[in-house]
């Protein structure tokens, strides 16, 4: 397997893995989405809420705030506190606001971290309040898995994409330029009397160039042995931390499989 990072900017990580089956890449993708533990607010104790939003809505909104600093927590399911929640598996955040003026927006940055966990972004609106309205609450964050609720999903977008293959038959090509016009991603260019591909990985396999080419000189296909993984986190973990964590989960799963097969009496 040959791995190359294509880009790592704007919160998006893109890397190619050559000679990796797409199903393997998808396994990583699915683990990223479903099985990497990150913290999210699971329980909210509301002391006072005179805003127009109901307690349930506020709790739901709090749950969706990406949180950082969950590394030192353990999964509640695996904690010895019997799923009750204890300082080992829970981290507390508090919020206490009273709006001084109308149309006052409460942002995630107003939450005070009592433990290790804090909001990954301080500009997420929680509620809009009018003067005199109050909101006092205590939120308990826990680690969780994306398969249980989308709030524990560390990524917003995560996709696998095959490597496109653009074959241009220079014998057939009459350099009419129709394909250059047609390509929505503008990745084809004429250079030295030939059509060349400027950025192969941008091709969306839309095949518009193929349809536009009168002599059928261009052919689009893909190579599913080489694929790219696109990761865009919500901010709880960085992109690389996340991929590494996913690999750990995968390895751990393999270890578990290995040990359980070994423990089978009839094996070997």
């Amino acid at each position, binding site marked *: 397997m040959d791995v190359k990072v294509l880009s790592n900017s704007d919160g998006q990580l893109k890397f190619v893995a050559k000679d990796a089956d*797409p199903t393997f890449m998808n396994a990583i993708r699915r683990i990223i989405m479903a099985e990497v533990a990150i913290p999210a607010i699971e329980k909210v104790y509301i002391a006072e809420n005179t805003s127009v939003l109901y307690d349930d809505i506020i709790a739901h909104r709090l749950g969706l705030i990406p949180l950082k600093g969950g590394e030192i927590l353990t999964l509640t399911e695996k904690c010895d506190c019997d799923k009750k929640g204890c300082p080992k598996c829970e981290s507390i955040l508090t919020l206490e606001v009273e709006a001084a003026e109308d149309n006052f927006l409460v942002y995630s940055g107003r939450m005070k971290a009592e433990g290790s966990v804090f909001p990954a972004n301080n500009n997420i609106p929680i509620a809009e309040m009018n003067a005199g309205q109050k909101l006092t609450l205590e939120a308990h964050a826990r680690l969780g898995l*994306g398969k249980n609720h989308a709030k524990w999903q560390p990524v917003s*977008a995560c996709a696998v994409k095959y490597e496109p293959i653009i074959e241009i038959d220079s014998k057939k090509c009459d350099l009419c330029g129709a394909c250059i016009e047609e390509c*929505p991603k503008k990745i084809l260019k004429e250079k030295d009397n030939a059509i060349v591909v400027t950025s192969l990985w941008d091709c969306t396999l839309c095949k518009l160039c193929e349809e536009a080419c009168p002599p059928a000189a261009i052919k689009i296909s893909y190579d599913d042995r080489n694929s790219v993984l696109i990761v865009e986190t919500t901010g709880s973990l960085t992109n690389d931390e996340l991929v590494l964590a996913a690999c750990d989960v995968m390895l751990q799963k393999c270890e578990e499989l290995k040990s359980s097969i070994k423990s089978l009496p009839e094996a070997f």
Partner: protein
Amino acid sequence: MDDRWVLMESFFKEKGLVRQHLDSFDDFIKNKLQEIVDEQGVIETDLPGYKIKLGKLAVKRPTIHEADGSEKEILPMEARQRNLSYASSMYLTVAPVEDGYEEEPIEVYVGKLPIMVKSGYCILSKMSKEELIKAGEDPADPGGYFIINGSERVVVIQEDLAVNRILVDVMDGTSPVTHVAKVFSATSGFRVPVTVERMKGGDLQVTFPSIPGRISLSILMKALGVASDKELVEFVSNEAEVQKSLIPTLEAGVDINSVKDALDYIGNRVAIGQTSDFRIQRAEQILDKYLLPHLGMTPNDRKKKSLFLGQMGEKILELSIGRRKSDDKDHYANKRLKLAGDLLASLYRVAFKSFCRDMKYQLERAKSRSRRVSIPTLVRADVITERLRHALATGNWVGGKAGVSQLLDRTNYLSTVGHLRRIISPLSRSQPHFEARDLHSTQWGRLCPSETPEGPNCGLVKNLALMAFISVGVDEKPVEELLYELETEQIEGARQKGLSGAKVILNGRLIGIHQKPELLVSEMRKLRRRGRVSHEVNVALYSTETINEIYVNCDAGRVRRPLIIVDGGSTRLAKEHVEKLAAGEWSWNDLVLQGIVEYLDAEEEENSYIALNTEDLDKERSHMEIVPSTILGISASMIPFLEANQSPRNTYGSAMVKQSLGFYAANFSKRLDTRGHLLHYPQKPLVNTRSAKTLELDRRPAGQNFVVAILSHAGYNIEDALIMNKSSVDRGLARSSFFRCYETEERRYPGGQEDKIETPAPSVRGYRTSESYRFLGDDGMIEPESIVGGGDVLVGKTSPPRFLEEYREFESTGPVRRETSVSMRAGEDGIVDLVLVTETSDGNKLVKIRVRNERIPELGDKFASRHGQKGVIGMLVPQYDMPFTEDGVVPDLIINPHAIPSRMTLGQLLEVLGGKAFAVSGKPIDGTAFCGSDEKTMKALLRDAGFKPSGKEIMYDGRTGRVLEAEVFIGIAYYLKLHHMVADKMHARARGPVQILTRQPTEGRAREGGLRFGEMERDCLIAHGAAMLLKERLLDESDRTVINICEDCGLIAYYDRVKDKHVCPICGDKAKTTRVVMSYAFKLLLQELMSLGIAPRLKLEEKV
């Protein structure tokens, strides 16, 4: 095009959406109310020389009478919350007249008049936006409804056949009548049909109520004072051909040659065996009162009536000799709409009559006791109050009409507004009436072609088109005078001179002849455009080879629509006008006053040639549409790219947008509707229509923009199911709150007994478990934010015993009180949202409790796009299993490809494409019907953003990571969450309550009922020979009972508890009885037969 939209926007800025109701109601209070009082004029009494003169009726500001006797002004929100009626006091000035001496007039309180919200008399109509918010109102609320006992009631517009207009028709061959001319003569208060029929013999006969049988037209006209046959013929027509066909009619009346004879002839029909003088008097009375009363009810009006009869005669004869065609009853010129004002007037008239009757009775009674009477104490104000309140609260109107007032639909803002623009046709739903249900070409621009219900009401319930406006009506006197001024020859004179020309018909009545009809019509229109005549006057010229008629209309209830006037191939609307409008210097009304736009009724529209767009303008055109898409109603205006859809889909779509959940009113937190839904994150539609924006429907949205892919995916969206992204749902997609309100009142009973709101003591009859009362505080009420479930008591209440016998049981403790607490509905749960404690107008304590319940989309919840594409969730798929595009975009919703081809909802495909183009480019896509964005524009935007212009994308299966073979059409569409949710419908039962009478399981979810094992299911078991199962289902699991039957006589034995044995009431206790298993319903049958005096004996045999 944009210029014309400015016009439309200014129209709605000035009129709003329910102006017709408000105008009609204001007209009712300002004019009709006083007219009704004046109709009565005086209250005559049987006391000699004593009567009461009625004067001015004054309507005050809306108030309520509190229990302590004070009168206080109220706002609509208080009325809604406290179950009050939003009504004003009416004061009538009366002056008693005794022996010709008129006493000082006094003002008396005569009752309360419900006030239409936001009408001229409503306090809200003068408030600014900020004041409205302070008053607890949603500033966008349209008004136009009443508040009766706290509930919002709409008086729905009623469609009716136009009155006072002659409609002719051909009869089928089997009847003795060949042709018929009918008119409903209506004047304030009543409606009388008059029919002229042409018999097989060619003579004309008249029928009208209160005279049995037919009367020859000639005799009737003679009775009305037509002196000679010559005059009679003149009254009918001066066309030789028509006159000739009048001969059989003249022959029928040949024996009667004087007015007296003719009256006697009629008198003989109604007062047989009376003296001649009396007969004539009766005949005169009937002619004055019951024949064509709209022309007047005095002897002076008889000439008018004979002229009108002549007009009817001419029309029917013209029909019979083929000079004209029969009238089209479904033509919208022949329809009138009755609005709240008209309907209230007819109701008020009846109420006022009975009020006067009651006052007369009270006066006579009081006067007989003492000499001086105080009128204010005699007036029974609740006669009117109750009559109005009751009719509005139940919808039962005078004349036996039901369903006139309906509970205002508050599902979402659009359904509210739509409800206020609904039109009901009184035609019965059981008969087919195919023509009446069909869309008629004259409904263009007046009624929505798409929005009508399916099923029995199809085509009978209609909706106003956006710019349709209903005439309020202007006085016809000045119009008539103007017509004479413009050289219309008065009909009598014209006929005597034998003038030929066009007949001038004003509101259905022939008033004269004009020799240059084109000139008169163009003159009238010119005057109207200059503002010399009211803009409500419409003129139409019908001219064919054989008929030449000018119709002038100025009555109320005509549906009219505004159009831009075109002369000589160019519109009168100039750029500067639009600029003035846009700058706010001008309003819509200025356009009407300046003669730039005018309203046309269906009649005048027949004379016009209307261009749709500027491209169509040429010399021939007389008008231009303002905006073509205003032919649609409110609901249909919500549908983007409507013109691309198959027509019935728009009908379904219009019906469904009214069921979608959204932000129904900005004051929802103050409202206590019995049921209400609120969407948590409502969004404006990405692809919207300009009409919807103009009407500010996107300020109260009811739906969300979903990423939609058309894909089969695992097959869980087969047959209109939907696959929804579970992760999207987790993130709050389509989440809503459901509110239900419970209420109870602490009533007082006669005899000093009263209800008490408290936590009931265990000794109370009907005490539930103490568990049920666990949330109640010291005041007997639940705390807000308590989490409650089915059966939990919200307000504890005890009531005094209902019957006298319950008193007898009392021991030293006194009578046992009943438990009458309010508890949560079975199977529902939620969180107590609001507890409102207030007082009714009777001074009783009123508690209202609102319970909220969060609704997260689940399997089986119903969703729909705006194109009539509905479906229920078939599977919730987590994001990692969903197909994704190479950018990682995951659909929120997957619909099945089979939903598209047969339904041909291309509008939805365009919406999805447009939504995607908008989302990727940030450039708005407009979906307005007939003038929305081009498909090419969307495609170009998509291409520029690096997407395939077709909207299709390569997608990968989230489960395997492999590419999907086909390209997938994916984009953004506005989806609606409809209020049919599984949580409200899910139901199952093992054991449960039974009916008292039959002991069979109850029916329906609300009563925790059983699921019916029906006839066809029974057939199945019989076919299988599954006898045991059959008996178990039908007997053992239903109403199995064991009855002892006397072996001797076969009748039912009873159980004697003292002797501990079964006794036959006939054979005594010696007889042996046997236990027989039977259905309890059968036992009932036996007993019912016995009550009829039949002895149903069961013959018992040993089981083999």
